[in-house]
């Protein structure tokens, strides 16, 4: 009997719907346009279509996993709820004062992001905790009630509550929520300790307010989606992908939707880790290049790196520090303004720049013939022969080479270049932009890019992977099938992961061990329960304990993976200390100072493989067969410094073990893999194309 997993990935333009049979490895997919007014409509229509056309039985669905950029877009477009904030007396401006830094040093007209809650909706109440959590000023409950009434009267449908030092003692926030809930049961409530139980009031405020801002819409949307899916006869419950790559159920997602902000990109990174893992690679640079941006995620030991903070809705999209800080665990990735639509033009000193300005999908590159006049990365890929004008997007998009030439001529003239210099130049510059960003990002982690395997996805990823890899000194590229929906597949094939965090704030040498162990055990129990709900066997789950630790007196924490429990007594302290020292050395390249440690937070991460079988990803339809080499085309190669007649291969006709020597390109509907001179590509047993560079 089939055991279908259903993946739904809602992006800015398309919603990808993927079904993966956990028994056979078969998969089906549909791309439908995202319906922005109510994204659940497009999604539900897509699922119905897929079930009908592929004759699937709703009762065979065992898992449903969903990722969405919906909430991120609400933050970018400022389309969330009218939100109020109730906070400690004296601190309503925390959100606006911020960290007092600029994200651009030379821009006199710099504008920091407006707070999501304007000053008149930020109210103060008397209460105060000390840094150790003891009460300095008790909570003025009447003031809380009055403030809530005022905010609701002003139209707020969501209220955030943040009190200083609540990360160590949530009592005042809890009580305030009780009071507000009793008076205004319809209002969405968010307490800071529930969303980001961490020291630093600005970052915690920002996170809390982001959550409050999207909470009402998340509630309505998730409820409707879950109900409608159930109505189709699908019994499996709906699960959501978190920014960390973990899973959560609808109830939790409704409570803290801020943890879903990066769910789409997280799925992409998980897909990268999964496909890399199929080829035995545990250090992977996942490289997703689409129409307007490229995203890079580092995978170590088979898992994408996780960061514990990121920025939402950046004022300037690619500038660090220009967004709203959000303290949640999230798969760490960088976004670069480099995509197929990136525009090439000379700058003020006559250097050729590529991006971040983009022609997007409308009007798009000149090649689309939809009025785009600028020469873009996609245009240069046509000019260099890498892309096939007769088979773009599987032949569904007509390509106008005359428009490409016209745009090239104009841009080449402006930049004082010969057209061929321009064509290669654009390819080279956009690759350098991405390689440069990757180098800096990897250096920040203290790693060496040469030890990674590049895993390209997205329409433009496989086209650019070869020369990006060369620039980084990377020797191996793994190109999965179906680069276009790989991210949605990541939702389903990556191990299910559930994370929990709890606040401790105690010195390691003064820990109450029984209580400490009980806290870990409680979090583990919660994680296993969620795993079981997703339709997987929790007995196969792997449990990891982590903790945020710091030296007493230092202001920053290090997240360390601890030895497995249970921790019975102070003997466990040595192991924890050792784990901290190892994590500290990795991060700071030196041993930590010899001072006592503080445990700030504890974390549990439980992951469970989807299936024990390490199976190939079978295609939805059997291989077409026939002649794998389609023909030849003139293509430009840096190594030859010239165009050469180059073989073109059909990926759908290639079988495991087939080898292709570079220079060559291998075409599929969603993308084209470029293999340079001296390299060779081979179809692996798992169905991936593996390129070995010279």
């Amino acid at each position, binding site marked *: 009997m089939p055991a279908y997993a259903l993946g739904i990935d809602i992006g800015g333009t398309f919603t990808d719907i993927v079904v993966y049979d956990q028994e056979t490895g078969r998969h089906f997919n549909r791309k439908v346009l995202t319906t922005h007014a109510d994204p659940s409509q497009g999604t539900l229509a897509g699922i119905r279509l897929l079930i009908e056309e592929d004759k699937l039985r709703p009762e065979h669905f065992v898992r449903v996993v969903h990722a969405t950029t919906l909430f991120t877009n609400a933050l970018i477009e400022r389309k969330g709820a009218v939100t109020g904030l109730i906070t400690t*007396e*004296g*601190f*309503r*401006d*925390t959100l*606006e*004062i*911020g*960290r*007092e*830094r*600029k994200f*651009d*040093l*030379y*821009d*006199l*007209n*710099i*504008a*920091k992001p407006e707070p999501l809650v304007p*000053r*008149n909706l930020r109210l103060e109440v008397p209460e105060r905790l*000390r*840094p150790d959590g003891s009460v300095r000023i008790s909570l003025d409950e009447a003031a809380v009630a009055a403030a809530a009434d005022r905010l609701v009267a002003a139209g707020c449908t969501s209220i955030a509550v943040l009190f*200083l*030092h609540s*990360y160590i003692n949530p009592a005042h926030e809890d009580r305030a929520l009780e009071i507000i809930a009793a008076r205004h049961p319809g209002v969405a409530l968010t307490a800071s300790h529930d969303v980001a139980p961490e*020291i*630093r*009031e*600005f970052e915690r405020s920002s996170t809390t307010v982001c959550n409050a801002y999207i909470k009402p819409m998340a509630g309505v949307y998730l409820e409707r989606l879950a109900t409608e899916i159930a109505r189709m006869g699908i019994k499996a419950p709906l699960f959501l992908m978190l920014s960390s790559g973990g899973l959560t159920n609808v109830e939790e997602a409704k409570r803290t939707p801020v943890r879903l902000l990066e769910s789409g990109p997280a799925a992409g990174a998980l897909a990268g880790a999964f496909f890399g893992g199929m080829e035995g690679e545990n250090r992977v640079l996942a490289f997703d290049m689409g129409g307007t941006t490229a995203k890079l995620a580092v995978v170590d030991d088979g898992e994408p790196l996780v960061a514990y903070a990121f920025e939402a809705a950046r004022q300037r999209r690619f500038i660090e520090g220009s967004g709203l800080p959000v303290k949640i665990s999230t798969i760490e990735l960088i976004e670069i303004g480099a995509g197929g639509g990136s525009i090439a033009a*000379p700058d*003020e*000193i*006559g*250097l*050729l*720049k590529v991006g971040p300005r983009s022609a997007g999908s409308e009007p798009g590159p000149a090649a689309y013939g939809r009025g785009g006049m600028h020469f873009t990365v996609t245009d240069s890929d046509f000019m260099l022969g890498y892309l096939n004008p007769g088979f773009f997007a599987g032949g569904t998009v007509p390509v106008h080479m005359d428009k490409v030439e016209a745009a090239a001529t104009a841009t080449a003239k402006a930049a*004082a*270049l010969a057209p061929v*210099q*321009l064509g290669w*130049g654009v390819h*080279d*510059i956009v690759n*350098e*932009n991405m*390689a*440069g960003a990757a*180098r*800096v990002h990897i*250096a*920040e982690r*203290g790693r060496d890019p040469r030890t990674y395997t590049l895993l390209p996805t997205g329409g433009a990823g496989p086209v650019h992977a070869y020369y990006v890899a060369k620039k980084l000194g990377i020797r191996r590229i793994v190109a999965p099938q179906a680069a276009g929906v790989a991210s949605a597949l990541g939702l389903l094939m990556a191990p299910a992961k559930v994370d929990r965090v709890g606040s401790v704030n105690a010195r390691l040498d003064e820990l109450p061990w029984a209580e400490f162990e009980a806290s870990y055990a409680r979090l583990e129990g919660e994680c296993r329960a969620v795993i079981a709900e997703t339709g997987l066997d929790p007995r196969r789950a792997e449990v990891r304990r982590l903790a945020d630790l710091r030296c007493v*007196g230092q202001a920053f924490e290090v997240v360390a993976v601890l030895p497995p429990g249970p921790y019975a007594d102070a003997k466990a302290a040595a192991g924890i200390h050792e784990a901290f020292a190892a994590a500290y050395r990795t991060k*700071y*390249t*030196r041993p930590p100072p010899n001072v006592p440690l503080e445990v700030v937070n504890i974390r549990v991460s439980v992951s469970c493989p989807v299936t024990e079988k390490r199976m190939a990803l079978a295609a939805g339809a059997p291989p077409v067969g026939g002649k794998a080499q389609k023909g030849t085309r003139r293509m430009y190669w840096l190594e030859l410094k010239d165009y050469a007649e180059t073989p073109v291969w059909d990926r759908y006709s290639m079988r495991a073990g087939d080898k292709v020597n570079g220079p060559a390109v291998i075409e599929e509907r969603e993308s084209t893999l470029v293999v340079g001179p001296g390299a060779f590509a081979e179809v692996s047993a798992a169905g991936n194309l593996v390129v070995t560079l010279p």
Partner: protein
Amino acid sequence: MSNKAGTAAPSPAPAATPAFDAVTLEVLWTRLISIVDEAAKALARTAFSTLSNEANDFACVLTDERGFLVAQNTGSIPSFIATLPSTVKHVLAEIPPAEMKQGDIYCTNNPWQGTGHLPDVCVVKPIFHAGRVVGFAASTSHVPDIGGKIRSVEPREVFEEGFHIPIMPIVREGRPDSGFWKLLRTNVRTPEQTVGDIEAQITALNLIEHHTGTLLSDYGLPRLTELSDELSGRCEGAMRAALATIPDGTYSYSMNTDGLSREAPFTLQVKLTKKGGAIHADWSGSSPQQARAINCPYCYTFAMTAYALKCALLPDLPNNEGVFKPITVEAPERSILNPIFPAPVGGRSNTGHYLPVVMFGALVQAIPDKVMAATGSPLWNVTQSGVRPDGRPYANNLFFNGGMGATPVKDGECTTSWPSNISSTPVEVAERISPFYIAYKRLREGSGGDGAHRGGLGQDALLVSESESPIAVVFLAERTRIPPPGMQGGKEGTVGAIVIRGENMDTRFQYVLNKGDTLLVRTPGGAGYGDPARRDAAARARDKEMGYTA
């Protein structure tokens, strides 16, 4: 960069040589900038102190064999404009390239050859390629402690300000000079952190050296000179073209600042002479050198002068030798903007941070749409020291910022570090590391200068001592007597104040706080731009509704 008035060379037309077309140059420069950015990330990651890894108080650069700046890391703060290339040139003047060996590292924190004060330690490493020096990797970083008096304006001579390192090798052919490191460790309060930070800088230099060598090999370049000249020439051309848009003429501005006492304010005065594609800033008429640590060495005067011009004219172009070539800066010796050894210079930023404001005061006469009204800077710093309950001494810094000035197109940002970029300490952290209870930290309503565009607000923070033992507090606080002046009819911002036990205090002195004593920090608001009568009615109504104005 020259210490004297220089005559500007005629503008060279940027010509593309066959070797460096628009693509090759772009790829190479992107690569070089990513090399110094990568080094900066490595430095921040391996540095011990939060000054490097949170406040970005450091810089990494690559120069060619002449010490001309080729690339500077993206986030480095304005204080370091052109200082490292100048340090490299000083190194070259003392140690001829023929005497340099592969693996050597030279160091200095001389305020006149470095960045203007002792805590900024500069290290320079020659880059060898095919057996000869082809360039330099250099870095400067504000170390957590360099000995001497703790941050205040008290010192009368640089000798009181800490451990002074003349230009000297600290690593020879890869071997650390143990004598130097022993001396350094002995003379600073935080040997582990200070040495750790310098080691982090060395990590960064090694990375720049290695990657630059790889790039030269990859592209078959024998050295950096030609590439440097081409980039520099183009950047210089862009700066000259931008300068050409300013009408030729002389623009002067003078501004008084707090000084050491109410009776004797300082005067900062500039005369800009703009001719064709060149500009000369003459700071003659500024106050004389002081016997307090608020003197601003020439290197810092140049950096702040150039910073203002870059903000106004060419904000988007990465820093490089050519950007600053059309700019000459002159400041009379023994003035507060060009003090001579052994003048004390520790609080140089307290004077230097005013300079871009003075520059805009002159530039507004020529390019009124490209400048900003006066800010509520310089950065405020409250240093406390005392004894913990267990008898160990401690010292802590808390930073506070004022509001930015308004511009021709928008209101000033509230509570934002400018021209520097130093974060404040979160209240929850401050209450853990210092013996203060912070009763409030809020926008200072009504502190922004009125105008067609309003100045940004400063802040009020009330600190209450909870310490059983007395706490000594000293301040770096400016604009407590003379407010940030308005621009084009805009009104001035509100002056700042240090209020102890309810009383306004002179910020140049040290005070002692006992348990329960209050310290109110009130940072200045930014100034307004343009006639208040022209302020948009909706903006004015919103100010009132939000309580930004009284």
